[in-house]
């Protein structure tokens, strides 16, 4: 597999479409166990990011990812801004000076992004945060020589769904303790949209 500038832009646009389409859904998930701002924050942040990337000419994938990072950092007021912003910033650093992202580079980029999320949010696996989706996705990439879109989508979806039965240990939802069980983690759902979109781009290439 190889991702060039156009494919990375496609990935982001697909992600934005899913987020805009599910804005109310994300908000309702966050209202159940958080502060109800996830849909609004993600839709504003990604729309601004897309507005930026569609009006800019890029020669490197790194610059695309960096622009997304800086837009999310500056436009999203909730926790998803610094978390997704840090993730995209780390990815842009790993792919620096590369015209294309190959499988190994994607693996390294996502691993570095996960490290950034862990360091920024101080969450651990199974705390009912987006880490619960990013970790199995990174593990999948590390385990496979070749990565298939359908596999990626399935792993991300199962991981997202598994957050429902967990008790939150980080973020606003942690204040609810046991009462957070039975609800999906909103950040895991938006992370699923990100990886489902990446899976679509990978599938188009297969």
């Amino acid at each position, binding site marked *: 597999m190889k991702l060039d500038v156009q494919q990375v832009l496609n990935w982001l646009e697909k992600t934005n479409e899913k987020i805009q389409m599910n804005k109310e859904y994300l908000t309702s998930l966050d209202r159940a166990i958080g502060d109800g701002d996830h849909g609004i924050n993600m839709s504003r942040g990604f729309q601004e990011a897309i507005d930026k990337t569609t009006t800019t000419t890029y020669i490197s994938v790194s610059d695309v990812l960096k622009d997304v990072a800086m837009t999310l950092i*500056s436009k999203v007021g909730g*926790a998803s*801004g610094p978390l997704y912003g840090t993730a995209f910033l780390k990815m842009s650093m790993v792919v620096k000076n590369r015209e294309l992202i190959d499988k190994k580079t994607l693996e390294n980029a996502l691993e570095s992004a996960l490290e950034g999320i862990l360091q920024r*949010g101080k969450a651990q696996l199974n705390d009912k945060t987006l880490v619960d989706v990013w970790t199995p996705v990174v593990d999948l990439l590390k385990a496979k020589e070749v990565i298939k879109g359908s596999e990626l989508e399935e792993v991300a979806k199962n991981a997202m769904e598994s957050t429902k039965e967990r008790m939150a240990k980080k*973020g606003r939802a942690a204040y609810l303790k046991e009462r957070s069980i039975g609800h999906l983690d909103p950040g895991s759902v938006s992370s699923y949209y990100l990886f489902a979109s990446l899976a679509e781009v990978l599938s188009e290439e297969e």
Partner: protein
Amino acid sequence: MPNVGIVLISHSLKVVEGIQEIIQQAVLNVPIEIAGGTDDNKIGTSVQKIINAIVKAYSEKGVLLFYDLGSAKMNAELAIELYGYENVKVVNAPLLEGAYVAAVESSIGKSLEEIEQTTQTITKDS
């Protein structure tokens, strides 16, 4: 010699305006800057507002940042990293009580490290 600056970060502009008012009633010789709400003054925090507040409060004695809830801390740490500030630290203490005690200590000329030490043990009764 200037004193250690204080930056108050909250999801709400009203919260930090209020705390700033409380502190400035007692402490006059310490820079107390605020970063409350998002860029359009909605509930949330803004990296840019935090950076602006740090710049205003900054001197070679440093700046201490106090915050209210989780994502405020993340944005505070991002602001420091993006600008590579030296002598700027995020303090893990209650926003109002922590910043109040820190401002009093700063006003009597204590160093960043000394104030950080004190704020680590702050409770309602201290």
